[in-house]
């Protein structure tokens, strides 16, 4: 059980050189129930990455409060960063296993590598990989730790369409097998509708939550393009303020 409540009163970046003080987040209140798949949708540069970093505990310089409820122990976080952030001096496999406890099961890593079609490349150093492959490695790394909270920052950018679809299906499959809270950042509304239980629309900086919309398309017809498109049309019609965002 990992419910997250976000209440950020203010997050700003101090003035530096020509750039003045930048207020990234103001009065953002979100409540993210346990095991929900949430897509954060907003224009680029609106502070989505900042929000994920705050939730991951990487950025402590803000006023407000984040509570990640978790019984007994601190929640495990899997984070797929916007850039893959692999250690270039460790092989693909080492990059994945380094994040795991020493008694990890090699079979899970094998299975994940196989699904992402990286078995061939597992002993290669990341500099020899294409960006798409590196991205897949960083996704495996996040899955492999069995996270309580999975943060994904536009993870499917630069994957080709078939791979993106495959990874998306894998992501949903894994999530259904072992439910955990997912926060998925994207600016692609179709992708968001196909994945999410709930969409949260965010405003340009200072970032606030504009509206929250539940996606009620049943999980088994999420791969149906027309259902997604119909939902998108209706959404844009009902909420003209969202149209302005995208």
């Amino acid at each position, binding site marked *: 059980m990992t419910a997250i409540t976000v209440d950020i009163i203010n997050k700003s970046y101090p003035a530096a050189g020509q750039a003045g003080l930048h207020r990234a987040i103001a009065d953002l209140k979100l409540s993210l129930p346990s095991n929900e798949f949430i897509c954060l949708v907003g224009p680029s540069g609106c502070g989505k990455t900042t929000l994920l970093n705050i939730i991951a505990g*990487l950025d402590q310089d803000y006023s407000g409060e984040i509570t990640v409820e978790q019984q007994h122990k601190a929640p495990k976080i899997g984070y797929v960063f916007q850039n893959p952030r692999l250690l*270039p001096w*460790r092989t693909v496999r080492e990059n994945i296993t*380094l994040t795991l406890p020493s008694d990890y099961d090699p079979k899970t890593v094998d299975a994940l590598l196989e699904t992402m079609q990286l078995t061939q490349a597992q002993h290669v150093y*990341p500099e020899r990989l294409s960006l798409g492959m590196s991205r897949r490695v960083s996704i495996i790394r996040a899955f492999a*730790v069995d996270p309580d909270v999975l943060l994904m920052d536009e993870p499917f950018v630069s994957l080709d369409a078939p791979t993106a679809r495959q990874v998306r299906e894998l992501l949903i499959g894994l999530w259904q097998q072992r439910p955990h809270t997912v926060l998925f950042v994207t600016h692609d509304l179709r992708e968001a509708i196909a994945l999410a239980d709930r969409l949260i629309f965010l405003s340009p900086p200072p970032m606030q939550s504009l509206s929250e919309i539940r996606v009620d398309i049943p999980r088994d017809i999420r791969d149906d393009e027309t259902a997604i498109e119909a939902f998108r049309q209706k959404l844009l019609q009902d909420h003209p303020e969202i149209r302005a965002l995208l």
Partner: protein
Amino acid sequence: MTLTKFLSHYRTLNLLSILLFIGLWQGLALYLSDNSLPTPATVAEVFWQETLSGQLPYHLGMTLLRLISSFVVAMLLGCAIGILLGRNQKLDVFFDNWLVIFLNIPALVTIILCYVWFGLVESAAILAVVINKLPNVVVTIREGTRALDKDLLEMARCYRFSKLKTLRHVIWPQLHPFVMGATRSGLALIWKIILVVELLGRSNGMGYQLHLFFQLFDVAGILAYTIAFVAVIQVIELLILKPLDRKAGRWRR
């Protein structure tokens, strides 16, 4: 093989340059025909005699021993302090002045002071070398630590890497080029300082021996020891540093 193709081999070029150097030396020595510049053959003869008598290996060994101990102490301390200063801005600001002072004290001054304060003993000799080398290592490693990739450090924090794991897998590989730089410049520096240390206050080692040759005006002896000296450094470079470089660089494209 045509001449240009023959010349294009780096190994041949290397060999040619050494041959040319010895040739020039021989020519100059023959032209001067004076004790102040013996021919390569004379120097080789002295080298051989000194090696057979055990004098050269003994003094070279003593110097090497001092080199290794002072080098290890300076590198370990320097890396630790360098990483600390690079990671902690307050400490860095505080100790920056100290570093500048130590960087600019002439080697001779630290050597004399160490001998005056601690006596003409082995530990004073080592300490003098370490004090001379340490600031250089600290500055180099501090630069390296400042340039560490923040993205990767965040990744390590997010996935809860332990301190040791972060140091070994995230920080150390990034510092490696800086450590190698410090090692190379360090060896060159320590070699030179150690001779002065030995000359001023020790009764064995290369520096002591060179001092002796100077008093006897024995240029052949000085050159023979110098060649042994340079050869040892080359061996260290080829057998230790180069393979380390290769091993650390194998992930690069």
